[in-house]
């Protein structure tokens, strides 16, 4: 079986599995959110400070909250069937518009953080495995234990204190200079300056995980017969490490990295808050606090799609990395 047909088979199977998963997620999310006490009308009425019976009732009617739960669910599914995520009366905008405004920010942040985490994690893991038990291994171990155990918001604040308040090198928050007219390369540099600290705060935890994982998997792979064979063939240590040990050690790392994509979205809430980053995580948090469930359901649906896509990608990458992995 050629590589292409193998990959196509994996793709078809995972896509077929994804459809019922998404439908299940939507219905489950919808029903779970019904359990939260209070609704959007309560929040808006509370914000305005001086509501009356009539205003609260009018708000509820406008949000469709006066309907039975089942009617609301069917209306929501009907919207989805027409490829609409619904309308947020709070923002007075279609949910898809609201999410579209925030999605790029979060995706860029997540991917940058993931790329940073993988790059640093695998590099550090390789160094640790190569010098296992010697001082570089010990030193890096101490460092990543710190990354692993310190909460992201605290690291974020400390980075801000150091680089923004003390040194004044980097901005403390936001996603770009507001109202700037620069373009091209200058714009990229401007955005990158705002990206460094949040991406790093988000990545540190994952750097710790990936480096430990890479180290363990590489040590495991080093004892395998094919490594001894490679050494017997007379390959250079460099070729053995990268061509045989690391390639096989990457399998567990890719699996875990795929699973982390969902976790990154969760961590993004904290980092986006600390750095005032206009992303999806903040939006989700605000949607919970304001009980704006149309927005929240949209984000949850999108996140579940994201996780499914990530899983499919991981399956494909693994099928490519290790031809022995077959569709069951």
């Amino acid at each position, binding site marked *: 079986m050629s590589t292409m047909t193998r990959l196509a088979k994996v793709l078809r199977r995972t896509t077929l599995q994804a459809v019922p998963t998404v439908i299940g997620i939507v219905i489950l999310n919808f029903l779970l959110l019904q359990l*939260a*006490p*209070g*609704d959007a009308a*309560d*929040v*808006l*009425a*509370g*914000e*305005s*400070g*001086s*509501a*009356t*019976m*009539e*205003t*609260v009732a009018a708000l509820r009617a*406008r949000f469709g909250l006066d309907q039975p739960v089942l009617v609301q669910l069917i209306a929501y599914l009907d919207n989805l069937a027409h490829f609409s995520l619904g309308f947020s009366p*709070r*923002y*007075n*905008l279609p949910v898809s518009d*609201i999410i579209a*405004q*925030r999605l790029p*920010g979060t995706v860029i942040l997540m991917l940058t953080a993931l790329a940073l985490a993988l790059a640093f994690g695998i590099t550090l893991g390789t160094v640790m495995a190569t010098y296992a038990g010697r001082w570089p291994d010990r030193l890096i171990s101490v460092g990543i234990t710190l990354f692993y155990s310190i909460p992201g918001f605290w690291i974020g*604040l400390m980075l*801000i*204190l150091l680089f*923004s*308040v003390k040194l*004044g090198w980097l*901005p*403390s*928050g*936001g*996603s770009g200079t*507001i*109202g700037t007219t620069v373009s091209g390369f200058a714009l990229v540099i401007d955005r990158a300056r705002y990206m460094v600290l949040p991406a790093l705060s988000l990545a540190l935890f994952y750097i710790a995980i990936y480096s430990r994982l890479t180290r363990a998997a590489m040590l495991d792979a080093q004892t395998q017969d094919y490594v001894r064979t490679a050494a017997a063939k007379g390959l250079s240590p460099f070729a053995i490490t990268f061509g045989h040990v690391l390639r096989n050690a990457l399998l567990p790392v890719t699996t875990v990295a795929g699973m982390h994509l969902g976790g990154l979205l969760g961590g993004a809430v904290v980092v*986006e*808050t*600390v*750095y*005032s980053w*206009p*992303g999806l995580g*903040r*939006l989700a948090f*605000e949607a*919970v*606090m*304001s*009980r704006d469930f149309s927005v929240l359901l949209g984000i949850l649906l999108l996140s579940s799609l994201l996780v499914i896509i990530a899983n499919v990608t991981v399956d494909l990458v693994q099928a490519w990395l290790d031809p022995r992995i077959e569709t069951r």
Partner: protein
Amino acid sequence: MLLTRRNLSKTLLFGTITAAAGHARTSQAAEPRRGGTLNLVIQPEPPILVSLTHTAGPTTRVSPKITEGLLTFDLDFRPRPQLATDWQVSDDGLRYTFALRRGVKWHDGRDFTSADVAYSISLLKQHHPRGRGTLSSVREVETPDAHTATIALDKPAPYLLAALTASESPIVPRHVYEGSDPLNNPNGRAPIGTGPFVFKEWQQGSHIILERNPTYWDPGKPYLDRIVVRFIADANARAVALETGEIHLAPDTPVPLGQIEALKSNPALLIETRGYDYQPIVYRLEFNLANPYFAKREVRAAVAHAIDRDAITRVVFYGWGRNAPSAISPALKQFHNPDIPRHDFDPKKAEALLDAAGYPRGPDGIRFKVFHDYMPYSEAYQQLGAYTRQALANIGIGVTLRAQDVPTWFKRTYTNRDFDFMSNGMSNSFDPTVGVQRLYWSKNFKPGVPFSNGSGYSNPEVDRLLEAAAVESDPARRRELFKAFQVIVATDLPDVNLVTGANLTIANRKVRDHTTTIDGPSANFADVWLEA
């Protein structure tokens, strides 16, 4: 028969109105400088940018920069012209006539006329959360010519003028709203107004940009080129942005009060406590009068005696506040009654009252146990709850604090009424009829409505006094009605009023003339300027 403006001032008890149309400058003598971008932070992000159908705090901070009102009020609560240049009230208090500013244009180039005023008042009466109440007696708005508008009332509304600020009663363009549903009108997200600043962009989750209005009716103003309104969700991040100078102005207590001392040591920053008397907040304990313990006046009095307001000001508010035992905040000077039955801090007396009420200490030292639901708005409320628990433990009442998020708190307290007693902070608003009546009026005991009469308090005499004060056009008599009302409430104790104030602005010293009106951060900012 019309009153002169001088007599009108007596009617309103705002003090003497000076004839000068200009703004009262603060003592800062420096000459304003043109130019610069003001970075303002507000939190949380407003859902809408015109305070026409929605009155969330952040909305009322942004809206007046773009959309103006008929009047503005100086720091002493005296009315000043904005879109109205002159105003007169008839003897019977039923007709308010406004001369409107000439030559004013909307940001889209159309002329501002009396038709816009009439249309805005009718929109506010129908759709503004408070406007339904404050403007309920408006019969019609007459527009004899393009620059005169007369509000005709069915019954007197002595608080009407105070309600005509930009943040409370914005004047919106009729040609934009006519024939549309005002709740869904796109103007809410990209407003057109007459104000000193023109809306440019709103990037959700990040910022709003307002640009200088080059054709503003007040020549030479505004001084600023641009205002960037930023949303910074995290209090620590706000503190950092103030320290680094990325933010110039941060109203509404942007950082926990405990951190103010640290920021004060920064020579670039100053703390401004003025500008919050248009919506003075009173922090209070409110009892559920349906609770078997708190149904007894002795128990409520015992709680009142167990609370030390000085300790609350010191511990919870870090000294930023003042005692407010009356139902009307001392910030509303003309209505506040300091001479009420007092329940001073006296734990012994509190214990005696509880003994007399039939709740002796049990073998474990506890008389009875109750739950306390603090309003989950900020750290201060949590600390207020913690203080309450400790203070009541001293007199043998076991208090369990319940933490929850805001919607859950609303649902539990105001809708399900599944609470024993709560702590909250209520705006007294610019007038007791608007801000205080709702909390004690028996007809406003409406489960399901946030910030209504939460205790379930009902006293026919209080109802009578409040209803009479709402339509009393003689200021002296009105004041007496409110003073009598405060005495009864302090006797009945449906709630324990604690402290007021504790709201402040942190400003970079480069920003000048940022607090010149009673509603400080809600001013139009035409006068604000930045030092070089």
